[in-house]
């Protein structure tokens, strides 16, 4: 089981590496992992067995996605002074724009679905 997970993890890392090399080599504005994701997606379309094979590992990894944000989040300690003086304004900007983005995104999706007659499933 562990051996299989290691191979799956190596596969993900290989795609990330390929993404990094592509990003730097072609001077793209996109980060390596995002290109790696696109490359893995295309590979799965061409060779569907790959998706089936690594799915157990990706499910575990994505099931604990939140954990991976903790180290960057703790970086808040370096910016506590800014939150003192601009905290309220930043809070309003972040909460306000998140409400706006979710509302606009969801309403546009539903509006276009109705307009194009795409089925609701």
């Amino acid at each position: 089981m562990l051996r299989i997970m290691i191979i799956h993890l190596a596969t993900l890392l290989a795609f990330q590496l390929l993404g990094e090399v592509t990003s730097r080599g072609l001077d793209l504005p996109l980060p390596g992992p995002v290109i790696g994701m696109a490359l893995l997606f295309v590979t799965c379309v061409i060779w569907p067995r790959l998706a089936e094979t690594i799915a157990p590992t990706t499910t575990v990894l994505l099931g604990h996605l939140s954990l991976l944000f903790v180290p960057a989040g703790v970086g808040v300690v370096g910016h506590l002074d800014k939150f003192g003086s601009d905290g309220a304004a930043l809070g309003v900007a972040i909460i306000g724009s998140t409400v706006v983005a979710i509302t606009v995104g969801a309403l546009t999706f539903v509006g276009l679905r109705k307009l194009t007659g795409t089925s609701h499933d």
Partner: protein
Amino acid sequence: MTEFAEIWTYLSTDPLLWLTLTLAAYGAGDALFKASGRKPMVNPVLIAVAFLAVLLQLTGTSYATYFAGAQFVHFMLGPATVALAIPLYANLNHIKKAALPMIAALVAGSLAAMLSAVGIGVALGLDTNILLALIPKSATAPVALGVSEAIGGSPSLTAVFVITTGITGAIIATPLLNLLRITDWRARGFAVGLASHGIGTARAFQVNETAGAFSGVGMGLNALLTALIAPIIAQWLLG
């Protein structure tokens, strides 16, 4: 017997302690989240970050020392981003059927996220360097940090904004979308992913599998669009 102070001197600078505490803090946050009946307000990331931030302050530990240990967890963001291709592929049929609504929602939602953040920030008198760090906050962490650096913002400030945005999205998404009476899991997930990236996506996966997959798609596509549009907005802001 060795003095505790001596042991502490070793532990506080060794990666092992902070790596262990990062996992333990998240584990405790996750246990509280489950004990609360999965209430979005009881966010495991928020609990872990608050606990660790207070601990660093109390022990006088620098973020650099902390990160020397926590970087092993942080590193996994890369392969996790790559792994998003799998739920994306699994939902290929759903995606093909909803391509047009998705593209429209992506462009409208992504622009709304960046412009409303800058607009509110300008109205409330925030400095330009803070506004620049705020622009890519809806994109997933590795992308947002790269974009922030490219447009002249502070990546570490952006990291904090990205996390705050993600937690905000994870908390408000369900009540907000219920209020808007949107019942389509695809629309709900997609909007959450584009607005609040991986933390929103993690939340969406807890609520509904389809919502989670579309959230992953929204997050991936908005990472691409933010990388392309943020420099234009930054230029307009500085001009």
